[in-house]
């Protein structure tokens, strides 16, 4: 059997602190505490993209990327649910192309539930949620084929993307579609910025479901995330200050404290 990595006490403490903060923030939001979310243009553009497709009377294409069922793709499905709800209220079709067969039933269920939640279950067409291909470039070309044949007015790319991102977005642009993209992967963000109309970058990607639904649980989670990020930034500043002041020779009390935590 393979050997697995394990956490030390310092990591456990940091994890518990971060998780506790996020869960506490969620609980506070669920009890009705008001929380503020700044405007994120990339997410506001989703409504514009759906409206454009409705005006043109053409469908939209949604790509959840190459990922399987992981956190990034589940977030993409959460955004897909919102896009489908919005499209259903305006009687506009959304075509979803998956690259992972494991994802297919989950995407089908998400889309069906989204139609049902706005009372438009008759709009759900099983062939609109498709498995395109498990191969990276075959998926890209298959998706471009769907965009081209169906004359998609708006394209959404949310999830994990690699080298195929540019093939998708450049062709989508050539077909004249309004494109909204989002990925947490820093290596693909520049390609999306260069080729899409609106891009959701970095942690904005995980803020999407809270921003779009304004559900207290999600809003609380988002505020919790920001508190954790602020704490991490403070830790970094302290670390920089410590490293600068002591230049690798930490005072005895600090070294002892770190040893107690199990830090190496």
């Amino acid at each position, binding site marked *: 059997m393979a050997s697995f990595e*394990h956490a030390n006490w310092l990591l456990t403490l940091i994890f518990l602190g971060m998780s506790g903060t996020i869960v506490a923030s969620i609980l506070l939001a669920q009890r009705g505490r008001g929380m503020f979310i700044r405007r994120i243009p990339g997410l506001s553009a989703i*409504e514009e993209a759906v409206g454009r497709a409705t005006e043109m009377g053409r469908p939209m294409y949604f790509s959840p990327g190459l990922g399987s069922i992981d956190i990034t793709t589940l*977030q993409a499905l959460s955004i897909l649910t919102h896009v489908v709800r919005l499209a259903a*209220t305006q009687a506009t079709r959304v075509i979803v192309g998956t690259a992972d067969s494991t994802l297919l039933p989950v995407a089908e269920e998400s889309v069906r539930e989204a139609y049902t939640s706005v009372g438009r279950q008759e709009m759900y067409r099983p062939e609109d949620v498709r*498995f395109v291909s498990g191969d990276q470039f075959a998926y890209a070309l298959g998706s471009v084929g769907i965009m081209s044949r169906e004359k998609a007015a708006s394209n959404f790319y949310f999830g994990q993307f690699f080298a195929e991102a540019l093939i998708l977005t450049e062709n989508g642009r050539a077909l004249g579609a309004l494109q909204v993209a989002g990925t947490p992967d820093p290596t693909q963000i*520049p390609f999306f910025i260069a080729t899409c109309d609106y891009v959701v970058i970095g942690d904005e990607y995980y803020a999407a479901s809270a921003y779009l639904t304004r*559900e207290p649980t999600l809003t609380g989670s988002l505020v919790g995330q920001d508190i954790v990020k602020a704490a991490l930034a403070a830790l970094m500043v302290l670390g920089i200050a410590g490293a600068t002041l002591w230049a690798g020779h930490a005072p005895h009390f600090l070294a002892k404290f770190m040893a107690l935590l199990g830090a190496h």
Partner: protein
Amino acid sequence: MPGPLLAAALFAPAANRSDLLLRLFASVVLSAVLLMLAHKFLRRRGRRVLIVAVTFLGGLLFTLEYFWPTHLVKGRQVNFLTDWIEPATIALSIIGAFTVGLGVHSLTQVHGRLLLRRRPGWHNSLAFFISMVAMFVLVLWDFSAKAKPSAAGVLPFHNAVYEILFNGIYQPLIAATFSLLAFYIASAAYRAFRIRSAEAALMMAAAFIVMLAQVPLGAWLTHGIPQAGPLGYLGFFRLERLGDWIMKSWNSPAQRGITFGVAVGALAMSLRIWLSLERGTFFSQQPEASVEGNSAGSATES
């Protein structure tokens, strides 16, 4: 300890071929019976409880195993849950493998409809069916009767056809698609570098320096700037050093900042799913019915 003993009893390799077949048969029958029972007796609420329970227990297993204190056994750090990780991972892979059939079903449904109704582009669907069936048969044939080339280097018919289809057609097509990226990168870069604002001008300047720093021409252009002596401090303005400074002091911190934010976002999302706090997104309807009131352009946004 009961944990490792139970794990050893459940996950020990099969003793022989008949033992393996018996276990396979028992697993399939047991799984089918459990699925049938769940489908027959579990209502919507019951299914939700089952999903929530399985999600929580799965998350708990991996989380506890990672954070629980360990001890050294035969040169590796283990705790009472370590022996359960690999079987759980294999079980996930098996469940994933079952869904390949769903993928084939989806493709067959979409292309079958196009073909039967003779919709525009039906010949593409026909090509899809011929390719899928041909590759399926040939891969199985090639796998089950793999033969070495003869002394003259000639492969048996089925191995040769497989080689032509996979290595002679499929792989070059994929390589050709990949090579298209070079042109797409050029056209995307042209648009990205058009100077339309102060930020775009700054990005253009930075990109120009970094690109020049990567090629010998860049180093040659500024090789006259001294790196030592009384004016040695001017060496910073040599293009290769300037490019390196932009990448290390500006690009890397920005990328790490994004990565930190993404990691915390992923942690929050994981917690919401693990503890089933994200009600409505995956397992049942959203509590609020209206979309318009909650949309991105709503009044609560500022």
